[in-house]
């Protein structure tokens, strides 16, 4: 079974090379999808191995797939597949010169994320997480506008500094392990309960490492890169970052928590994660109330969900299966929404919520999946996010963290109301309301021409652009096209809708993965 550890690293790397060298656009554009399939396939293989009580290892134990790693690899593959496959219709705006590197970087990103979850070594995992910063930097700055440049600069500086702090923490954990005779960075060895690790060093190292990875996970107060990067990156990349990158950063936090809990008890990180989680929920609630941009809305919703997952991690053992289910549900839902947001942005030409009205009447092909996915995100049953949130809240009350969970619940209600209002504003309403916004470009073009500054070509371009849009005053023909592949989105939403009801094997897998982290004995 250990070949399944190679596949998610080697195949995406090869495909990245292929998309750089290939002259065929079709081959190039399919390569990230193929990478995702490779990761998902080996993830499922490793899950089946984990359910059969096997733990495949490779490279002298450097790579190791226990139930948790196998589950996370499956999440990476599944979210990757939804984002890349759903994003196939999207990259028509990509300048041809950079198209090859775009697809190659997505494959590199997937390979690095796979390495991060499969490595049984904190240092190697660190290097893989930092490698994703490198892969996504150019993806965030892909559109080459001043805004995307700003987002990319902030992302790289904050991401690298955050991850550098995590490295300092890892160095201290490594120094602590010197006391045991053989210095090691292996998860497996370090999370053994009876290891004589220096408590002071583990405390400082754990705190710094969690702080660093929390930056990468988008937890407040280190979240400021997240809305900028998510709103400026191409939609499939936003989906990947939100569903995969944040999840893997959370995975790193969970692993480090196992080490510190064994040495200094759970209280220390519990406080840190509770504060970070509640602060994230608060920031998301405060900034969602008056949000005007639908991609930023999705980004703040990611901060909210990461905050809730951090609260779950703070509660500990009893909440861990719910947190892990949350990672999958949030990843799939958010990837779907980002893919749809990219399509809406492309056909409507604006990221403003005010300018996108009555979508349900005008473009039901996009509005219907958007509404269903938003319902899943907000936390309606039968979608799995509902069950995860309920699971975390119930576990919190029974673990004696009623105050934290109570505050989280209030903030969740505020976010629920804001997101519902914004979604209704975008989708429901009479199409007449959209008329002024759509007419505006046509009105601007003649007005600009007499000033003489604007070249004639520019005015002509604006007019043809306005003509291409269906004019709202003409009897309206609803646009039923989904503007891209629909199947991945349907599959993603169907999966999140049913996954919470499958006790075997999903329930068993989640329990085993939580056991790896010292949950449910």
């Amino acid at each position, binding site marked *: 079974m250990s070949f399944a550890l190679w596949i998610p690293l080697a195949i995406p790397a090869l495909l990245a090379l292929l998309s750089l060298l290939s002259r065929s656009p079709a081959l190039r554009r399919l390569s990230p999808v193929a990478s995702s399939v490779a990761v998902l396939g080996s993830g499922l293989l490793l899950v089946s191995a984990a359910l059969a009580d096997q733990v495949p290892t490779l490279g002298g134990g450097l790579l190791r797939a226990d139930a948790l790693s196998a589950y996370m690899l499956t999440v990476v593959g599944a979210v990757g597949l939804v984002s890349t496959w759903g994003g196939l219709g999207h990259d028509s705006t990509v300048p041809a010169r950079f198209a090859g590197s775009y697809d190659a970087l997505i494959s590199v990103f997937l390979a690095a994320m796979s390495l991060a979850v499969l490595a049984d070594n904190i240092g190697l995992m*660190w290097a893989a997480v*930092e*490698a994703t910063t490198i892969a996504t930097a150019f993806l965030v700055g892909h559109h080459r506008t001043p805004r995307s*440049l*700003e987002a990319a*600069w902030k992302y790289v500086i904050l991401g690298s*500094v955050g991850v550098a702090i995590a490295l300092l923490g890892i160095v201290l954990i490594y120094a602590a392990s010197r006391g045991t005779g053989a210095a090691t960075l292996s998860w497996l060895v370090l999370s053994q309960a009876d290891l004589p690790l220096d408590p002071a*060093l583990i405390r400082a190292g754990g705190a710094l490492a969690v702080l660093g990875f929390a930056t990468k996970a988008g937890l407040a107060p280190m979240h400021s890169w997240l809305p900028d990067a998510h709103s400026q990156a191409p939609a499939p990349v936003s989906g990947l970052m939100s569903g995969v990158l944040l999840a893997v950063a959370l995975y790193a936090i969970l692993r480090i928590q196992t080490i510190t809990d064994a040495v200094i008890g759970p209280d220390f990180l519990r406080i840190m994660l509770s504060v970070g989680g509640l602060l994230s929920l608060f920031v998301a609630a405060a900034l969602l109330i008056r949000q005007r941009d639908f991609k930023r809305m999705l980004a703040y919703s990611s901060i909210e969900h990461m905050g809730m997952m951090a609260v779950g991690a703070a509660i500990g053992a009893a909440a861990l299966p719910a947190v892990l289910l949350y990672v999958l549900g949030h990843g799939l839902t958010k990837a779907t929404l980002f893919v749809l947001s990219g399509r809406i942005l492309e056909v409507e030409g604006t990221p403003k919520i005010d300018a996108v009205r009555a979508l349900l009447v005008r473009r039901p092909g996009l509005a219907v999946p958007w509404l269903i996915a938003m319902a899943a995100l907000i936390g309606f049953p039968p979608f799995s996010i509902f069950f995860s949130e309920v699971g975390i809240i119930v576990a919190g009350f029974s673990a004696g963290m009623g105050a934290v969970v109570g505050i989280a619940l209030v903030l969740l209600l505020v976010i629920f109301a804001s997101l519902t209002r914004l979604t209704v504003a975008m989708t429901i309403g009479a199409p007449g309301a959209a008329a002024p916004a759509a007419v505006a470009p046509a009105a601007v073009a003649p007005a600009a021409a007499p000033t003489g500054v604007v070249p004639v070509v520019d005015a002509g371009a604006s007019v043809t652009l306005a003509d291409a849009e269906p004019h709202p005053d003409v009897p309206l023909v609803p646009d039923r096209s989904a503007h891209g592949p629909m199947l991945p989105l349907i599959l993603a939403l169907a999966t999140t809708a049913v996954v919470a009801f499958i006790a075997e094997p999903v329930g068993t897998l989640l329990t085993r993965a939580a056991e790896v982290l010292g949950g449910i004995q």
Partner: protein
Amino acid sequence: MFTTIYPQLIGLCTGTLLLTSALMVWRHSLLASIRLLSVQGFALAALVAVIGVEEGEVEVILVAVLVLLVKGVALPWVLARETHATTRTDEAPRLNPTAALLTVALLTILSYVVASRLLAGIDGVSAHAAPIGLAMVLIGFLLLVTRRQAGSQLIGFLVLDNGIATVAFLTSGGVPLFLELGISLDVLLVVVILYVFAGRMRSKFGNTEIDQLRKLHD
């Protein structure tokens, strides 16, 4: 012979590291900072080599060569190319030199206080010098926060990274070689990426001041 001068060599190397960090805070010229960064890279490599000779491990000597090539030569070279290519832009930091140097002194004291609690369990000459690494991390933060030019922020990031490497080598003799390779490669790539972005910034805005990056907000 070597064991007698070993503490002095460690002191010399870490002293150079701290001195170059403080000088970087003092100097406002980008080129001077890059030269200091190169000196710092050499000092770090020397520190690693001294530890390697003391412990008699070939792997650590290899790491020293790697550090020399990446931090002493490659990174300063990349940065210097970026700076030579343009008109020399001197830094106008948010803090005046006196206040900045005072802050450096306070940060150094702070890191000694923190380290005395943290590293109580580790003996040895090298562990006693470890607070210098922490001080460098904090000075790196100071540079990141107070500088306005893209290039100077980059230097702040690299001082931060050098500080982490110093802590790693002084407390545990460094991480395994393959990890050091991965970490060095990552840092090198981050710098190259930021260098590319700084170039784009110049072609879009005409300069590399970070303060103009405030279009995105809520």
